């Protein structure tokens, strides 16, 4: 808490310091014909699997530009590689802001990487929009008024799992496996928040893995050995698939709660073996284009047509290309609403006043919604159960307003 306050003080002083230089009129990077948007992502390095998001966003801008742009302005998308290394992110972001003079940044990837530029962006008062990470810290309008997340945050998902366990397995023994980094730990925090004291009572075993681990077989064996009948699996697709396979191999059949990051038919279930993934419970907020559920869905068909035309090299089975498409539409909505006032203040203001905006590829009934005090655009999710062919949604849309 003291740390938070310290940051708050730092930013206020910074704000007063820069008050004189605040710009009137349009942001840098905005001309009558163009809006320049910056981005950093991992085209290389350990997180390069996410690189396709920025590529699909780039394709999205191609489509926007071909169809007349936004309010007559075309989008110039400057996306740089940071290899998921925080110092490199800092360098690339400064390059974007100070050299390229982008109007704002959008969908910069990763928690540690965005953390490295969090203060910088707020000090410089450059909108740091819809960052591609589910950490909770991107929604603090008071202390960091220029930074905003997008996807439902990891803690929310953790809380959903926690509540689900409380309701359905009040006496279950729970085993948890998570990636040993901020992403994994955030889920656990969310679970603890929802379960309170029950977390310590019900969770019989926690295991972690590193992204560099060759396999997680040993973890699965020891989780099975704990005698747990509920398994909360917080891992990326590669390890989720390994886990599903190994569990099947050693005959461990707990209730399997899998995090949304890996809830993908093509990236996780198919590699693991479809029949082995049957019964997995997960949550989601956008459509898995590979799920037969959306075979004839007009929304998904539009996405497919778009993929064919604008991102032919992209993999239509890859859920992340739908993610990129959806987040790009959110950005489009903000820019449309901003009209001709493309100052950084107004862009931020518009981003913070999305009212139930429908976004393609989100699950039915979901929308993006923000306010000056609510910097979490997507907060609804729905639970799913994989029945062997499709992820069947069940239960209501869960809206976890983050405090």
């Amino acid at each position, binding site marked *: 808490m003291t740390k938070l306050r310290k940051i708050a003080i730092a930013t206020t002083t910074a704000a007063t310091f820069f008050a004189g230089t605040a710009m009137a009129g349009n942001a840098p990077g905005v001309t009558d014909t163009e809006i320049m948007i910056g981005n950093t992502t991992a085209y290389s390095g350990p997180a390069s699997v996410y690189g396709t998001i920025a590529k699909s966003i780039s394709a999205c801008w191609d489509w926007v530009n071909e169809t007349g742009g936004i309010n007559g302005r075309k989008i110039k998308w400057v996306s740089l590689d940071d290899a998921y290394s925080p110092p490199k992110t800092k360098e690339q972001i400064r390059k974007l802001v100070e050299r390229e003079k982008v109007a704002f940044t959008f969908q910069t990837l990763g928690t540690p990487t965005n953390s490295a530029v969090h203060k910088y962006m707020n000090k410089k008062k450059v909108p740091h929009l819809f960052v591609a990470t589910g950490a909770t810290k991107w929604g603090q309008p008071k202390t960091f008024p220029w930074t905003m997340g997008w996807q439902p945050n990891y803690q929310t998902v953790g809380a959903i799992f926690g509540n689900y366990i409380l309701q359905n397995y009040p006496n279950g023994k729970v085993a948890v496996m998570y990636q040993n980094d901020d992403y994994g730990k955030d889920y656990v925090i969310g679970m603890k928040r929802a379960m309170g004291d029950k977390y310590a009572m019900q969770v019989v075993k926690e295991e972690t893995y590193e992204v560099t*681990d060759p396999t997680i077989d*040993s973890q699965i064996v020891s989780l099975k050995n704990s005698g747990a009948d509920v398994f909360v699996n917080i891992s990326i697709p590669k390890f989720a698939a390994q886990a599903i396979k190994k569990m099947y191999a050693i005959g461990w059949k707990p209730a399997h709660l899998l995090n949304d990051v890996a809830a993908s038919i093509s990236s996780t279930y198919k590699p693991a073996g479809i029949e082995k993934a049957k019964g997995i419970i997960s949550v989601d907020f956008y459509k898995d284009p590979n799920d037969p559920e959306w075979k004839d869905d007009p929304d998904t068909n539009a996405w497919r047509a778009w993929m064919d035309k604008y991102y032919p090299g992209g993999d239509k089975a890859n859920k992340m290309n739908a993610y990129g498409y959806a987040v790009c539409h959110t950005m489009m909505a903000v820019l449309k609403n901003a009209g001709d006032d493309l100052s950084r203040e107004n862009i931020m203001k518009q981003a913070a006043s999305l009212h139930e905006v429908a976004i393609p590829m989100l699950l039915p009934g979901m929308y993006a919604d923000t306010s000056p005090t609510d910097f979490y655009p997507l907060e609804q999710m729905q639970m799913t159960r994989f029945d062997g062919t499709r992820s069947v949604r069940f239960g209501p849309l869960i809206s976890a307003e983050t405090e």
Partner: protein
Amino acid sequence: MEYFLQQTLSGLANGAIYACVALAVVMIYQAIDHFNFAQGEMAMFSTFIAWQMMQWGMPFWLVFPVCVVISFAGGVVIERVIFGPIHNAPVLSHVIVFIALFSIFNSLAGFIWEFTIKPFPSPFPEKDVLGTNLIAMHELGMIGITLVMLVMIYLFFRFTPIGLAMRAAAANPVSARLVGISVKWMLSLGWGLAAAIGAVAGMLIAPMVYLEPNMMLGILLYGFAGAVVGGLTSPGGAVAGGFLVGVAENLAGAYVIGSELKLTFALVLIVGVLLLRPAGLFGRVVVNRV
């Protein structure tokens, strides 16, 4: 008890991965007296080539040898084309070229095949072994193939003139030339062999860990650990070392340190073994009296 057994066997299965890589590491060390840091990436690239051929509809048992041959040729070509002009450059310059190859293969694989994981078929049936679920057929098969490969390599180095010449060229290139050995070709051959073994390793590992461009990043450290523990001069030691590391890592993770410090465990293991037995558990101490 069953828990212990399962951890041990799953350690053996992981160990088979490490053993494969360790074997390739020791091979190239024997052949060129260096470590090739791009070795893992080369193996990954070979595996992608195999995957691509299967996507085109070729059957596994055809793909396997074809991929090994392609990798062998690739290794030879890399040595001839890229290292040929800089044979006389300092060793560290060679290391830089390894790093360059590392980036190139990783980057190219990502460009061509993307970073999403790909299932890679196993040549072995998905059945329980002896009616237990303790170890998968593939894991058993992998251990078997690794051992077969080891025997073949042993025979090759021990009993064929070419094998002997390769060892000589690596250990003492000047003397090797003086008995008429073309050190350049031996180096190329060494690269070819190492690439071929890497390809086999890659194709065996991929079904367990899934194929993706970063597949070998984490494995390489354990492969090195296996090679060091077993002894860099001994292919057999490397294989044993790989298994040992796999089992030790699992048991330590399960009973002692938890899964959070596995890499640190590998570090301690490497440094510890090097301190206590610098030549590795099975390596020979090289003596030269003067």
